């Protein structure tokens, strides 16, 4: 009985994995084809492997990728910084207006995107941040900080109070408690926030499109939609560009995953 359940669950897992990986497979597969191959048989392996697609795409995405990397790292850093501080406040202190502050932070997520596009653009112009990295970092960071605070608060609240009290009695300051206890124990959640924020910042499209211009600040998502190709080549170059552009994200995942696991095992021992 156990064996069939185990076999069945493996089978199910296999199917889920297959379906989940399908888009990725198609992306990679079609990045080696030209227009005719993509239009005629998108699911088959390439007949003629067009490695030139990658060469052509690389030139067009490399600088935007650097720009996106700068923005993404900065956004992650900023989000972690403010979220950790804010979550700590909510988790550790009881203070007046805590519910209100929390609502203010959460409410931000509920504002539909388009309502903000033009006012935010006007605002950034007024602040003199048009076509700068600052203009690309702050608004997305603000958006992700809300989710980050939300997730981290629950994680920190889950940490047993006795740990905090013990540290306090030993004379540790809040910052010390924060960095030595709260943050390490929230490892998995922080890793999740890094991944989520990183993904959102990297894939952000509409905002960079309207708020920047020129190659010095161009983000990779914008560069991808503008990637030129001949009629013969078709979308293969675009797909190649997508694959290249997703490599840093994969790196980010691996990096974050490792600390994810490390934080977990630590948590398990303590728990």
């Amino acid at each position, binding site marked *: 009985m156990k064996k069939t359940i185990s076999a069945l669950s493996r089978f199910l897992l296999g199917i889920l994995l297959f379906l989940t990986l399908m888009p990725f497979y198609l992306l990679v597969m079609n990045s080696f084809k030209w227009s005719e191959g993509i239009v005629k048989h998108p699911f088959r392996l390439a007949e003629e492997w067009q490695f030139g697609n990658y060469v052509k795409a690389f030139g067009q995405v490399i600088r935007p990728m650097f720009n996106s990397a700068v923005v993404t790292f900065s956004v992650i850093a900023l989000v972690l910084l403010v979220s950790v501080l804010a979550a700590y406040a909510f988790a550790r202190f009881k203070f007046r207006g805590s519910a209100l502050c929390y609502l203010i932070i959460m409410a931000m997520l509920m504002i539909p995107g388009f309502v903000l596009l033009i006012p935010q653009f006007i605002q950034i112009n007024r602040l003199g941040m048009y076509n700068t*990295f600052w203009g690309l970092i702050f608004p997305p960071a603000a958006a992700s900080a809300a989710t980050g605070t939300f997730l981290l608060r629950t994680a920190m609240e889950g940490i047993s109070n006795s740990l905090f009290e013990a540290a306090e009695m030993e004379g540790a300051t809040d910052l010390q408690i924060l960095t030595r206890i709260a943050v390490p124990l929230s490892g998995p959640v922080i890793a999740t926030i890094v991944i989520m924020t990183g993904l959102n910042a990297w894939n952000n499209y509409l905002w960079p499109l309207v708020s920047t211009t020129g*190659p010095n600040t161009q983000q990779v998502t914008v560069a991808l939609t503008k*990637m030129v190709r001949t009629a013969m080549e*078709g979308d293969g170059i675009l797909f190649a560009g997508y694959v290249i552009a997703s490599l840093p994200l994969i790196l980010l995942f691996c990096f974050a995953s490792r600390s994810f696991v490390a934080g977990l095992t630590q948590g398990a021992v303590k728990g």
Partner: protein
Amino acid sequence: MKKKQRNKVLTGLLAAIMAAAMLAGCGQEENKESNQETTGAVAETETAKEQSADKEEISLVFAQDLGTDEKSNQVIQSILEEYTAKTGVEVRLESLPSADYQTWLTTQFAANRGPDVYSGIIYNMTTDYQNGQLYNFKELYDSESSYDPGKKWGEALPEYINERMYITADDVPGYPTSTSVVRIFCNKDIFAAAGAEIPETWAEFMRACEQIKESGITPFAFPNATIDDLSWLWFSNSVCGQIDHEIVAALDAGGNGYVELAEICKGMDEGKIDFDNENLQAAFTLMKEFSQYWTSDYNGLDRATAQEMFARGEVAMVQAMSINLEAIDSMIGGAFEYVVIPVPTVTKETNVNAMGKSVILGGQPDTIYGINKSLETDEIKLEAAINFVQYISSPEIQLRLAEEINRIPLSLSTQLPERLEGFVITEEPLRMPFFTGINEKLRNYFHRSGQEYLSDAITLEDFTDTINQSYREVLEEIKTENGWTADNNYGMN
């Protein structure tokens, strides 16, 4: 201990990145590099060049919805560079993806950052003009162009295009440089295999579709997913125009052979427009019959996919414009031959009231160049912008674009290259723009209710009632906006 090390590394990395960001952010102001490899941007080199040149550097921001075709981008880019070499005025190209062009434009203008010169389709340019974003070209039309001397600039355009550009007698939003000519592409191999002939009349068209369907192939890939696919609106224009052609005479108060927006408002108020009439109902019924030969998912099919299906040989016919020629050819890869035909003519065989001539799908002013109204405060820049627009709309440039990227030129003095022979306009122009000449809202209404009508979600009666209601609603808004009433003859003189 490992944790501490990692924290240190992270902090260091963080600091390095924030430093890089700040440097890069500052670097934005100076902009010393000009990155020529990336597409579309001839970088503005303000400080460096200004110091070396003794005259003032003018630079213009030019936006166009060019898409991602490499050839188009290269051609436009080289045209811009030639212009700079000729006049010393730098032009920076903002090439936007079509889907987000309008969003980008609207957002930039909202913050007073609109481009100096940009192009668009007639509906958007008209709206932009009414929103106070565009410079009035009226006087320019009455003067000579520096690049096409010997006549008034406006007279270089075909008459019906010229007329169409005047929003009112005194307002012109820009200068058009091409027109779209939609043709039906027919796969010769499939036709031959089904024993069908390339049709000229509607009756022949329906017969050919039937034969192709019987041979087991879907006759037509008709994209009807969103307004951008345009097919339903234009095809209906043509068929309605062919059958109900007498409405033109009834509505054309001004007598120029074309029904303008004001005349439509007037006609509506006088009860002369009613979609319940038998001619229009017959037209819609024809379209419904036609739809049985479409792919089953037409309400979810978009233009690009339809053209791909044609290229794969899955359908016998598809609509496309001259600018799609290269893309379609490369997808087909020589697998079959095709011919292009205009919308089949509805003859008396099909409907006794038919005009007997086909009405064009397209033929409206397109790729209209407009100038940002805010340039009015800077005379030098305004002059440069006008000069630039006249350059890129000159006959030489139009010919070049026709030859290299298959754009249909408007200039009367431009000869059509051989490859575009199938796109020579032989049909009647669109005299009554039933569904495309009013505004975006009406197009939306017509498109959506059309989807419902075709898929039997609503009946023909409901459909025509909905169009009547939509017309009334939209025209009321337009009349209010423009202050048109029967008393002032709807703004016409």
